[in-house]
C-alpha cells in the first residue's frame, strides 16, 4: 500500500458520522498534490451498509473491518483492530476527523505503532517534498506549520469544518469493498461501555430562538451576567453562554453553546466577551448574522463575525441596551 492515504471513517450503530466526508475531501486534496491513492476503512460490526456508502466516493478501495468485539466502541478494541490493519497495509498517511471518539483512541494507536499523531489540523500545504500540516495553537491565537520527523505511517486528525464535506468527490463507479475480520484477543478490551444517553430533558430550547445574546468569560463575575440579560431582554432574545460560564454555574448547562452544548442558528448571535474557540464556534457559526464585542482585536471570534466592536463590554453593552430600548420605543 505504498503511497496510500488511508481515511478512517467513523460510524455508530451502522450510521456514518458525516464529518467523515470532510476527511475524504482533505484526503482528495492531498492526493491531488502528492499524486497518492486513497483508500478508506470503516470499523465496527455489521457495517456493510456504511462501507457501501463510503464506497460511493472517489476512492481506490474501502475496507470494512469487522468483529463482534467492535460492536460497541472501546479504545482497546479499536486500537487492536486498526493496529493489525495498518501494520499489514503500511499506508503513508492515516487521516481521521478530530471527533471525541478519535481523540479517545488515536493517540493510543499512534503510540502503539511508535509513531506520532498531528492532532486537530486545519489545513495542509506542500513545501518541496515535505507535507506540512497547519494546526492552531494557544487557543487559536497562533497557527503552526508542523512536519513529521519520523517514518510513516503518519497520523493526522482534522478539525471539524476545516474541509467541506459536500466537496468530497464521488467516484464514477462504486469503489470495491473488502471485508477484513479483525482478530481481537479475548482479554484485549479492558473497559466496559454502556449505552450513550442524554441528560434529563433540557428546560430551554435555544435552537428555536431568533435572537441570542451570548456571554463569555469576559463578563468576569456572575453578577455582571445581568448586563447581558438586560440586552437580551431589550432585544427580546434568549441568553446563552460559552462553556466556562456554565462550568462556573453562573448560567445553567442548557444555555451552553458549542460542541458539548447546543447548536443554534438564530437570525442574530451577539457574542459578548467570547474569544471564539473552535468548540464554541461549531455551535453558532450557522447564525445568519454574528456580532462580536471583544476587547482583544485579535480574538478569533472576529474571524467569523459579520460586525465587530473592539472595546470594553462594560461600556458598550449598557450603551447598546439603551439604544435598543430607544429604537423600540419609537
Amino acid at each position, binding site marked *: 500500500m505504498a503511497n496510500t492515504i488511508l481515511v478512517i471513517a467513523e460510524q455508530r450503530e451502522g450510521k456514518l458520522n458525516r464529518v467523515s466526508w470532510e476527511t475524504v475531501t482533505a484526503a482528495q486534496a492531498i492526493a491531488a498534490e502528492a499524486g497518492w491513492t486513497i483508500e478508506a476503512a470503516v470499523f465496527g460490526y455489521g457495517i456493510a451498509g456504511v462501507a457501501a456508502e463510503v464506497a460511493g466516493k472517489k476512492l481506490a478501495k474501502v475496507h470494512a473491518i469487522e468483529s463482534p468485539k467492535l460492536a460497541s466502541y472501546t*479504545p*482497546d478494541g479499536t486500537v487492536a483492530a486498526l493496529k493489525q490493519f495498518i501494520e499489514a497495509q503500511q499506508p503513508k498517511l492515516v487521516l481521521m476527523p478530530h471527533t471525541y471518539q478519535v*481523540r*479517545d*483512541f488515536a*493517540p*493510543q494507536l499512534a*503510540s502503539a505503532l511508535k509513531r*506520532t*499523531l*498531528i492532532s486537530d489540523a486545519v489545513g495542509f500545504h506542500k*513545501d518541496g517534498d515535505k507535507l506540512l500540516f497547519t494546526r*492552531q*495553537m494557544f*487557543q487559536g491565537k*497562533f*497557527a*503552526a506549520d*508542523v*512536519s*513529521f*520527523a519520523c517514518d510513516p505511517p503518519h497520523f493526522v486528525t482534522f478539525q471539524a469544518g476545516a474541509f467541506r464535506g459536500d466537496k468530497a468527490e464521488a467516484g464514477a463507479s462504486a469503489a470495491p469493498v473488502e471485508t477484513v475480520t479483525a482478530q481481537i484477543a479475548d482479554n484485549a478490551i*479492558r*473497559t*466496559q*461501555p*454502556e*449505552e*450513550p*444517553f*442524554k*441528560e434529563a430533558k*433540557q428546560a430551554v430550547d435555544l435552537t428555536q430562538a431568533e*435572537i441570542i445574546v451570548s456571554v463569555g468569560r469576559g463578563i468576569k463575575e456572575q453578577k455582571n451576567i445581568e448586563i447581558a440579560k438586560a440586552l437580551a431582554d431589550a*432585544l427580546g432574545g434568549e441568553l446563552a453562554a460559552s462553556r466556562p460560564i456554565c*462550568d462556573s*454555574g453562573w448560567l445553567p448547562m442548557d444555555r451552553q453553546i458549542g*460542541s*458539548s*452544548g447546543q*447548536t443554534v442558528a438564530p*437570525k*442574530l448571535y451577539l457574542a459578548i466577551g467570547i*474569544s471564539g474557540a473552535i468548540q464554541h464556534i461549531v455551535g453558532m457559526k450557522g447564525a445568519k448574522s454574528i456580532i462580536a464585542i471583544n476587547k482583544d482585536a*485579535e480574538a478569533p471570534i472576529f*474571524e*467569523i463575525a*459579520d*460586525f*465587530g*466592536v*473592539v472595546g470594553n463590554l462594560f*461600556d458598550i453593552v*449598557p450603551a*447598546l441596551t*439603551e*439604544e435598543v430600548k*430607544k*429604537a*423600540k420605543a419609537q
Partner: protein
Amino acid sequence: MKILVCMKQVPQKDAPLKLNESGTWIREDVSYEVNEPDAYALEEALRQKEKHGGEVVVITAGPARAQTVLREALAKGADSAIHLEDNGFVGMDAANIARAFVTVIKEDKFDLIFTGLQSDDYGYAQTGVIMAELLGWPHATIIMEIQKTDGGIKVKRELESGFFQHVAMPVPAVLTIQSGINKLRYATLLGIKQAKNKPLRKVALDEVKSVLGENMQKIEKLYVPQKSKKTEMLEGSAAEVAKKLVEKLRNEVRVL
C-alpha cells in the same frame, strides 16, 4: 486511592502573546496560570481522596516558573509534588512529555492518573492517553464523573452534542478530565502555610533523558493566522458604536 495529577502551566488566557524573533515560539515574558482542565483534575482528585482516603501527588514539567502551579496545588490540599524542571520541556511533543512522566512515577504504585483533556497552549489532547499506552493501563477521556466501584471505577464520559456514556473499568487507569466536572475550591490561608512544608521533589532533565527521543513532529513555523473573512469593524465611543449597531440591527440584520 493514590492519585497522580498532571498539571501544566500555560500562558494566561487574556495575556497578549508575542512571537519570538525567529518565529518559532512565543516570547516568554507573559503571565502564566494553570491549564484550566488540570485545575478541575486536581479538584476531582482531592474530592476522591476526601471520600475514599489515599494520597494526591501533582506533577509538572517545565521551567522554574512552573513551580507556582505545584505550590498552588499543595496549598489546595495535594500531599506532595514532583517538578521536572528544565526549559527543555517547553516545546516537547506529547510523546516525550508522557515518557518523561511515566519514567519518573513508574514505581510509585498509583491507582489513577488524571490529566486535563487538553492543554490550552499546545492543544495536543494526547499526553494522558499516551501515558496510558506506555504504562499498559486502560484509559478513558473527557471525563465528567468518577465513582469508585468494587472492582475499579465507573466514569461518565462526555460525548458530542449533549450525549454521555458510562464506562466501567479496572484500576490502575488514566483519565483525562473535562472542565466543569466539579466546582473548584480556593486555597485557604492555612493551606498556603502548610504547603510550604510539603515535599516537592525536583527531577532534572538529565535523569529522564535516556528515555526521550527526538520529537517525532516538528513545529517548523509559528505565526499569526491570516484573517480570511472581512468583519465590518464599527468604531467610536461606546455611545457612537451603540448607535451604529442599532442601525445594523435595523437595516441589515433586520431584528428591530
